[in-house]
């Protein structure tokens, strides 16, 4: 499997660390909504098909990437920085990303 890191180019999957399901939404830090925390910590989507995933280029530039991978074919249809297109912290919170995904 190859992941095309926006910084480093196409690299072998052994350079990356899987950092989990990219669909999880972290509740507000002060939230006492236990259901929401439980969902965030333990629930994972397991789709047969395209899946939003977080991968870290741990053996390279170390950025976290938002990867859409087909779980049936390993085909990767998109790779982007979690922090936004230029690696700046200007792309908003998890909730905002979620809203963007839906729109």
């Amino acid at each position: 499997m190859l992941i095309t890191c926006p910084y480093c180019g196409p690299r072998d999957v052994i350079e990356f660390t899987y950092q989990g399901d990219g669909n999880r939404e972290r509740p507000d830090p002060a939230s006492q909504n236990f259901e929401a925390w439980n969902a965030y910590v333990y629930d994972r989507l397991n789709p047969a098909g395209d899946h939003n995933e977080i991968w870290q280029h741990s053996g390279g530039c170390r950025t976290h990437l938002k990867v859409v991978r087909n779980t049936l074919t390993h085909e990767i249809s998109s790779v982007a920085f979690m922090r936004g297109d230029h690696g700046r912290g200007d792309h908003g919170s998890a909730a905002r990303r979620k809203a963007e995904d839906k729109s």
Partner: protein
Amino acid sequence: MSPRRTDTGGRVDRLKTIRFTFDGAPYTGHAGDTLASALLAKGVTLYGRSFKYHRPRGLLTAGVEEPNALVTVLKGKVREPNIPATMVEIHDGLVAISQNRFPSLAWDINAVNQLGGKILSAGFYYKTFMGPVFGPLKGTRFWMFCEHFIRRAAGLGSAGSAKDPARYERMNAFCDVLVVGSGPAGLMAAKAAADQGARVMLADLEPLFGGSANWSDETIDGAPAADWARRTVAQLAGRDNVRLLPRTTVWGYYDNNTLAALERVSDHKEQPGKGEPRHRYWAIRAKSVVLATGAFERPLVFPGNDRPGVMLAHAAERYANEFGVLPGERIALFTNNDSAYRAAVALKKAGAAVVAIADVRPELSPEMRKLAAEAEAEIFAGHAVVATEGGKALSGLKLQRFDMTNGTLIGDPRSIHADCLLMSGGWSPTIHLASQAGAKAEWNAARQAFLPPKPTQSWIGAGAFTGSFSTLEALAEGRAAGLAAAGGQSTQSMLPTVEAVPGDPDPAPVFEIRAKGKSFVDFQHDVTAEDVRLAHREGFVSVEHLKRYTTLGMATDQGKSSNVPGLAIMAEALGKPIPEVGTTRFRPPFAPVSIGSLAAERFGDLKPERLTPMHDWHLANGATMYSAGLWYRPMIYGLSGETVEQAYVREAKATRERAGIVDVSTLGKIAVQGPDAALFLDRVYTNMFSTLAVGKARYGLMLREDGLAFDDGTTWRLGEQDFLMTTTTANAGKVMQHLEYFLDVIWPELKVHVTSVTDEWAGAAIGGPKAREILATCVTGTSVDNATLPFMGIVRGEIAGVPVMICRLSFSGEMAFEVYSGAGYGTHVWEALVEAGKPFGLVTYGLEALGTMRIEKGHVTGAEIDGRTTARDLHLDWMLSKKKPFIGSAMMDREGLIASDRLELVGLIALDNRPLNGGAHIVEEVDEANPHGSIGHITACCYSPALGKHIALALVKGGKARQGTRAHVSDSLRNRFGPVEIVSNHFFDPDGSRMHG
């Protein structure tokens, strides 16, 4: 020259004699021989005993698909079992032994299994051993009783236990075109691609490139095919855009056209060359792949088809033409297709008598009749072999008239005297890699074979792999594939001319002759046609279930020769056509892969090591090193004659009485910098860091998101926006990743940068009543008195001219200081400290003394922060801030995490004054005969010089409430039982007066 070795021809060098042993007996062979061909030349017929029935078995094939002739190769104390003799190249000093026989290959007491053959029929294990226990000798308990004997009797070679001293390598490679298989199709493909300027890799599992050209009697461009192959290989070898990989099995086809291959670099040599690995694992990324992997010939299924002397037709052709060895003197053939006639002619030419050709087809073409005449063989059209005779070698066989339209046998059998029977049941393209790469294989009724699926990755097939069995087609398809793979245009140049033996590629649809006796489908796992039918009668209709129930195709050969006949018999039983029964998907590896090659540089002399800046000093000063992950750390600095325990007790005692120094460079160090650094640390740690003054350090605890404890360490505030975080040695990487994750994914708005600086700093911790005095004599530029450097204070100064940062903190419980300098000056500063300490009796101490002092103090490490404990379990709840949320704060108060019967940290004192063991259970009442009722376990233990007792830290259910009570250790593994007192984990100086000074 042995009687079976021909005078000329083949790849062997008759002038070079090679000596080896098989089952202890000395043999000779020639350079170029495999173990199989060398033994066959000496008239050896018996190579092994079968898996279940211990039937005598001979060579079935000449290649990688060999199911019978599996041997164990011994190299010194290292034994490698289950290697096909057909894949072992002989060399001087080779020691090979046969397998699955007791006491010897010729006399095997377990051969009686075959007399009671019914006992071990399909599903025997399930039926006999699974399920409830009725009486003493049934069901699961019966299995437990019999397992030992069955495992000994049924099986393959046994693995060795000696450490493998061989070296293994991993290689990453990139190419435009990878050609798998070097027969006429593969060679043409490689040449065509290379001519286009593509970077080409050509891999073949055999030592000699050429595939069928090495043993066919054909000519290519007017020369013997083998010569054409030599010439083409020489041309390829001379090009710098071509890499040739002989002895290289491409065994896996993965995503993105990544292929895995195993190169057997030095197995064929007496000694590997200098620096040469035994095996090399290739990870190959190919833009395009040409699959020219050929085809496997199929056995026919008939009674006695496993007797030594029964062999595949093309295998005999290979032995005769490629190795110059005749598998017999009076040879008979049994076939359902034309390809066997070519073998008959080849063996006749090589000097054998071909006595009969039995063909299931009633009508034979004039060409075949002509070939039979050329071989001087009598033809029995519309006949089948119904029995074979002989013991450890074939003596004869029985033929009977056969109606292939309904499978019936007619008339009386007649006997033929022969010492070798060649069979051909048609050919199955070697589609394994294509199947691994994606889609399902497709059944071709004319070829009676599964042909490769449509490519789902970037590969092109050529030659027999696609079902095109003639050499002319192989050359044409190979060239087209090579061109296309390299992105070239088709050319008008002439293809080589071929003179070939004629033949129809389509066999008659006959897989099995049903007659009395055992007819084997899977030779390696001893699965008969009757086993397959039995499975069907018992209700197994899916191929996958059939495989599991009968174990068909599940041996080390993965059913290379048995899958299709097995399916055909299943299809007949089900009354369905073969494609409806389906095929199984092939999975990697194509052939067995050495585990060593997969581990490669992760072990042995290629494994990376992390050494602290003071490493060489430790070695030069008597340290015994201890590997902790990739790090090497001093365990003790033993004096001569000292045991490990004596050494650490001396070191710990001296530290508490005077002073000690220890290398702490391995601690993880992370620079956390930026305007939001303090805010970030408040979120990451359970306690506050924004309130920490510049020039001060604080002990911090991190939780995971699920509320369990994660890591601890001190973090130093070097500036308003500049923190130096330390982590435990083991968790340094994990903590770094944790911080990066939160900054990148959860809080991208925070302006914080984290940098791993573990390797930039050398760290020395100096502690003990004299530590401050020692520092005072060697530190310049700052005072180290209590006012300037209070507990958890940080100062900057110099030692021996080198800038240092000193933080007063303590892990040992003594007044202690961590001295950090640039890594390059680590040894310089360390030596200056050691020198300054001499008048004060300073000792160097290692991990054992470090651990002893931390147990005495009751500090936690990874043994207690084990991923299951909470801050409360470890009595660190005082660190849980109530003023702010932090990672884990929302989840840490869940019911299960605050229950009163959780395992909590306690101290233990051995009341019998004997050593305790890590991992030992704690119980309320000892029951040595029937250990039970664990209430916890020991996480760390030592002899405490400060207390004069054997002590331990332990996690015990409701431990806090049990303090002051008695319990017992119960360790039946090491037979250690005895009373302990449960106490606080703070054994020594609980109010910290020593470190606060």
